[in-house]
Every structure is written in C-alpha cells, then in structure tokens.
C-alpha cells in the first residue's frame, strides 16, 4: 500500500520557502518602519526627507553617503535568506547625530541644539511585533 500522507521532502521544501518569505517580509516591514517619518506616523524626523530615504538593507554595514539618498531598500531584500546577517541602517551623514543628539556647530557653521530622537531604538523595538504580525499573515495562507 502506498504512502498517502504528507510527502516529507515536499513539506521540508515548503517550510524553507516559507521561512525565507517570512524573513524577507519581516525585513521589508522593518525597513519600511525605519523610513517612516514622524508626520506619517513613524519615528524619523523630517526636514527634506533625505534621512528617511537613506534607509538601506544589506549584508554588510551601511556606508555613509554625502549626497542625497536614492530611497530604495528593496534590492537588498531580494537576496537575503535565513541565517544571513542583515544590516538595516540610515546612510545619511547626519543620521547618528539626529539619533543620539547634537550640540554645537556643523561644518557649515549652523548651530544645533537638540536631544536625540532615538528612532533607531524605537524601530528595533518593533522587530518582535513585526515578525509576529508577518507570521500570523502567512499562517492564514
């Protein structure tokens, strides 16, 4: 009599695909959260929008850029797989001082006096909830 239950190799293949999809969807949601500005319900301060657009997803630490960001993190998501180390960060040169606060003059002589926004911490804190939400969505399929 032939086996009529679940094919283990097919199940294993589906599981791997599912895990990869869960990771990619979750990372995409986290990157979206990382780029959402305060007026749009996020945590990233906005003046020109460059900081929010400078979010990048990569398998290596983000590189600081001087000019305007391109605002596309989707390329980095397409290649990630479970087990990889993934970096999500803000490439704008001034991201660190926006996050941790800055008092003093910048290189253009402009005076700043601000406490940190802590958007990196607030975004990271959402990771468990994002994975749970994406997992629940996938479980319904």
């Amino acid at each position, binding site marked *: 009599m032939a086996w009529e239950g679940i094919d283990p190799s097919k199940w294993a293949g589906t599981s791997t695909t599912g895990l990869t999809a869960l990771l990619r969807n979750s990372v995409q949601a986290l990157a979206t959260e990382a780029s959402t500005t305060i007026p749009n319900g996020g945590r990233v301060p906005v003046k020109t929008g460059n900081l929010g657009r400078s979010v990048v997803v990569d398998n290596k630490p983000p590189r600081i850029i001087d000019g305007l960001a391109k605002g596309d993190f989707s390329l980095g998501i397409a290649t990630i797989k479970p087990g990889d180390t993934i970096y999500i960060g803000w490439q704008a040169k001034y991201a*660190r*001082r926006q996050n*941790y*606060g*800055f*008092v*003093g*003059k*910048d290189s253009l002589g402009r005076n700043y*006096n601000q*406490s*940190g*926004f*802590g958007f990196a*911490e*607030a975004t990271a*804190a*959402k990771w468990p*909830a994002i994975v749970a939400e994406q997992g629940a969505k996938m479980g319904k399929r």
Partner: protein
Amino acid sequence: MPTIQTTDWLALKARVDTLETDPVMQVFEPGVIVTPPTDERGPAPFILLSDVTNDPVRVGIDPRLHTRTGTLMLTVQWPIARDISHTQMREIIGQIAAHFPADVCMSFSPSRLRATQDASALPSFVDGAYRVSPIRVPWSST
C-alpha cells in the same frame, strides 16, 4: 493627576537624578536649549537625555492592561579638547551604565518601571567638538 506618560518620565528622571558621576557632569533633559558648561579647564563634559517611548502593547482583554516600553538614552558629550584615554572613557560610561542594572525598579506615583536588561554602553565616536558616548537603558512597565 498626571498622566501615565508623565509619571513614566518622572520615574526615569528620579533614577537619573540619583546618578553620581566622576567628574561631575551636568544633565540636560530632552528638548532643553543646552548652553555647554565650562569650568576652569575650558569646555566641560555633560550628559544629554533622550526619552524614547514605544507604542504600548495591549496585554489581554482588560483594556486597562497595557505594557509600556521605551529606551532612556544618556549621551555623554566629552569635549575633544579635554584629554581622556579610551580606558578612562569606558570607565566613566561604564559607571553610568552600572547605575541602571537589569531589573532596577524605577517608580513614581502609579508608574512602576524596570530596566529589562543591563544598560548598554555603545562605542564612542567623535561628532563636532565632542566625543559622544551613548548609553541605552531599555525599560518596561512591570
């Protein structure tokens, strides 16, 4: 009666107010206009506070039950004109981090907060005229 958001902040602030540093550093609350302090040796180090709160998470059926979380950030701003070794800097920020050990209770009126893990002292970096050393204190309502 102040709101829970106010008492949460005051609970954190009460803990910060008991912080003693060597050397003594002035602490600036979030959003204040900072006049960088000076002493007889010139620009003096100081601490910037940031109060980062996350979205509350509902715990169960009872709408009154929510878990509130956030990160208190203390950023030591050390003038680069003032000589300090890496070891000395790590010790100064290490002592600040040690003031917020895991499970330390911070309370004010109805707010009962605890540090969810030991405070983390991030690597220092130079920004403008200061060497900046952030310390993160993750907290949660109990």
